[in-house]
């Protein structure tokens, strides 16, 4: 593992953060009355699209796992379709988990689903980009001593911090501060976003800090 790798990681992460910041400011040039809280659903869609686009772009440019054996077009197309199906499935899975956690079942369905979409964007899309539609590899990465590169390590950190951010985002809902962002699911989506950004910032630093201890075995 070289320092250049960590630098590349840092730059890609900064780009992701930049895309999120852009998703806050760019739409206000095109849309009237745009603000994160009031037109929250629009922002969710835009942010999700931005982050996905940047992730795909980075995947195509940086190619962290370049060792793809086959490269026929049909293989790529099926892989892409599989990725789309996985993404949708993860959205539905998160939706079900939210409902089981206490989200309303019938009211606010669209809000809950878009929340599931943005959480999938923060967690599933990087997984798909890095590991492909391969659940076995996912399970490997998210277990003790399972990571094999700094990319996977940073993936682990950002994903877990996104989940923690989402979880913490639910805490202000019962409080009686009467703020507009205390409504389901705004505080949770904001929490997820903060968690994701925090993960993006922390993971290069953490890896840099522990670069002596980290040893990755190859597959």
């Amino acid at each position, binding site marked *: 593992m070289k320092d250049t790798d960590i630098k590349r990681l840092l730059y890609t992460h900064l780009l992701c953060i930049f895309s999120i910041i852009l998703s806050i400011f760019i739409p206000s040039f095109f849309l009237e009355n745009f603000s994160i809280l009031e037109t929250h659903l629009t922002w969710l869609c835009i942010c999700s699209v931005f982050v996905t686009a940047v992730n795909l772009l980075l995947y195509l440019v940086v190619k962290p796992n370049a060792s793809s054996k086959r490269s026929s077009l049909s293989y790529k197309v099926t892989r892409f379709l599989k990725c789309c199906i996985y993404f949708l499935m993860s959205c539905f899975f998160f939706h079900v988990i939210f409902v*089981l*956690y206490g989200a309303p079942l019938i009211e606010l369905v669209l809000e809950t689903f878009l929340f599931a979409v943005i959480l999938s964007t923060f967690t599933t899309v990087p997984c798909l980009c890095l590991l492909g539609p391969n659940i076995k590899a996912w399970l490997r990465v998210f277990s003790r001593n399972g990571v094999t590169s700094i990319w996977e390590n940073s993936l682990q950190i950002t994903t877990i911090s996104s989940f923690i951010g989402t979880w913490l985002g639910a805490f202000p809902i019962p409080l009686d501060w009467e703020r507009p962002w205390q409504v389901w699911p705004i505080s949770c989506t904001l929490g997820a976003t903060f968690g994701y950004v925090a993960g993006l910032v922390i993971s290069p630093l953490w890896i840099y800090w522990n670069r002596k201890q980290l040893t990755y075995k190859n597959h």
Partner: protein
Amino acid sequence: MQKISVLLFLAWVCFLFYAGIALFTSGFLLTRLELTNHSSCQEPPGPGSLPWGSQGKPGACWMASRFSRLVLVLIDALRFDFAQPQPSHSPGEPPVSLPFLGKLNCLQRILEIQPHHARLYQSKADPPTTTMQRLKALTTGSLPTFIDAGSNFASHAIVEDNLIKQLASAGRRVVFMGDDTWKDLFPGAFSQAFFFPSFNVRDLHTVDNGILEHLYPTMDSGEWDMLIAHFLGVDHCGHKYGPHHPEMAKKLSQMDQVIQGLVERLENDTLLVVIGDHGMTMTGDHGGDSELEISAALFLYSPKALFPGAPPEVSRFLHTYSAAAQDLQVKELHRLQTLFNKASADYQRLLQRPQGPEAALQTVITELQQFLRGVRAMCIQSWARFSLGRMAGGAALMAAACFLCLLVSQWATSPGFCFRPLLTLMACGLAGTIVCAGLLTTTGLKLDPVVLGAMAAAGSLLPFLWKAWAGWGSRRPLVALLPIPGPVLLFLLIRFAAFFSDSFVVAEARATPFLLGSLILLLIAQLHWEGKLLPPKLLTIPRLCFSASTGPPRHNGTHALGLGVGLLLCIRLAGLFHRCPEETPACHSSPWLSPLASMVGGRAKNLWYGACVGALVALLAAVRLWLRRYSNLKSPEPSVLFVRWGLPLMALGTAAYWALASGADEAPPRLRALVAGASVVLPRAVAGLAASGLMLLLWRPVTVLVKATTGAPRTRTVLTPFSGPPTSRADLDYVVPQIYRHMQEEFRGRLERTKSQGPLTVAACHLGSVYSAAMVTALTLLAFPLLLLHAERISLVFLLLFLQSFLLLHLLAAGIPITTPGPFTVPWQAVSAWALMATQTFYSMGHQPVFPAIHWHAAFVGFPEGHGSSTWLPALLVGANTFASHLLFAVGCPLLLLWPFLCENQGPRKRWQPLGRNEAEARVRPEEEEEPLMEMRLRDAPHHFNAALLQLSLKYLFVLGIQILACALAASILRRHLMVWKVFAPKFIFEAMGFIVSSVGLFLGIALVMRVDGAVSSWFRQLVLAQQR
């Protein structure tokens, strides 16, 4: 001996907590000082003579009486909008047809026809809006305090100056009829009285009909000066059906007729007052301070025209009270005093110039009003006075007890743990304290029993703390003090912190399932993280042999995930049965919490009834299935027979009782007596059956089928077929004992063969689940009477309760390693999840930690006529209803220790089937298939077993203890918070009661396990004796 020491130690720890709670409570929940001074006619209220100049007139006191007689009609829970006149609706709009609107027509008519003779006011009731508090407030003119709210059903005589006593001492004849709460409040004050029982809130008519029987004759007889009639029908109708039921319309129409009748009989010198003591919420409850509860109607009417006026008595009261109590703030007192002096001076001046300007009068009025408001605010502020020392002492005691639990549960996991030092420490402390207490009493110092108990607790704690301190510095680092793993510690901290926010206490019904679900998902994630889960089947290459032989330590990933999702689903479904706290008006309570009798539609009612009976049958079937799976249903023991026949009988009784209760009003008149009789007998019969079942279980707890066979000695081949060299430590752990046992059996078989030809072989079936079978049976037996105390549809929650605790136990068992010989441990996450689930079920059974939400109707299950004068039985029934989930989970707590051993069964069983039977097994009959040792592993190490039980119960007490500690700290730190009487104090009281119930239940559960253990030992002894003979 060890068992007794475990129980003794537990009892002592419970005592520590109780002492802390009692000390804190005595400092926190203080009552208002009640003055016994009485006003008299000879002492006028203010300086100088009274303006009305009435001293000389006969029968007058401070002022001349305008009316010589009064009829006071108190209609319980008469909300203002019940009496409000309805605007005659315009022909275009459809009329609003709420059952409670516009039913008191005669008020409206009188107000329209005789506007100068009648007034209708909206009166604001001071919370707590419970009947006794309101009666006290109405007759004494003071503020009711929170503490009095607890004594609603054991009311005591009023010692303060009050209206009734003044009238009686002035020689007026006060006649009372109605609610018997008055009997306790004013004993012997009435010249004539007709009391009727008030406790039975399901009975709409007894009190009202009784009053009507006596009202008009008494009125016509003329032997009264004040006539009080307290009607309860409206209140009870609200409790039973809610204000939106057609029954409410009937009741209000009846009240309308009563008022009409009274108005017709009124003479010229008589005043009629119709008043509601409080209102009611949308569901018909009261007790809190929501707008609907505090708005009550006040209607005045007289054949003579009415008048204005108001005297100043409050200042003198304030003066006397501040002299007697010294708890009012001095500065505020001075301000009010000057305000009052100024006002009275202005008043006197005004009196000397009767033709003064209108503005001067207005200033006097505003000054007086300001004064009164100031007094009121100051009294409210001050009449919750705390004793800070006691509160701090109680909290410290609880904290120390928590620390002790943590410490000793850590000691109990260490291998070299022994009980003797614990007991000696405890005995030293107790003996020392008793000696001290004895000395104190001989010196004649009188102490509160609460303080004495707290001192005893603190004194007996000291040796432990000293020992901990001594052992700490030398070898224990600080980290070892917190043996709780990080994530669980975080959860406990969040739970601890949540008690300090009123929003979170109010939202606890939603926060607890959230935390519980997070804990469950965290458990699964942790299992995966540590590699204890097998990847899902779809992804593994099918290597049958290999995957089979690595059974015990790893679990199927999809299985664990399925358990987790099932649990989340159960929790979510149980959350559908929530009751809203009154602070969140946007939230709607679940309609499924009301009893079936309040439903109007016939078809829906029948469907729901079917669902409830279905839940009952499913619960029964699940328990029987479980027992059959572990084959505890085959033995001829009486307790097993009871499970087979008694439980269905109980279910049948419950179903029949529900049918009667939900349809009692529709029964044909001929069957009324039968129905009434059955609704008395059935619940008692079910409770009796449950009690006898528990007795049987205690008497013969061993549910083991013994088979004595004379025949060829068996050789058990228990070895797993060779499937490659052992790959892991776990494999070795599993295979080596098998080889050992195989050899042992071979050897024994050879010995027996040499001894006699036909040796007696005893096969005990399913000894491995003997503890948990007894526990599950006991829990089911407990659940049935508790279920009967709840509304019918809560039975679905009971079903979910059993289901989700089953799933949770399975999930936890996956994460708990079985350490075969060594000390057994129950991990913290298991105990925390169990405690969280108890709280979650408390809410999903339709409870809230506030007094108006208590299900009072539980007191009438089996006693539809009420209880007469005894209060402990209804209190017991209501308590059992409220704390059912605490009790069940506490009693079932030992299952956390037992279940991993039980789950050991599954690995081998799956293993045998695909491999087929080799020749040696074929000779063994099916029942005698190799059984894993399961819970007998615990018996093999009795010392560790007892230590584990102690450790488990201490951990549970710790988790509960920090909850009550957090409540106490929150209540004391936030004692001047706006919500202290509404949220924190009730929460503390409920949590304290829950703690007491839980600790008792835990004690009973542990005692039951020990009883089973003793019975198993004696059973083995008998077996050995029988073999020797």
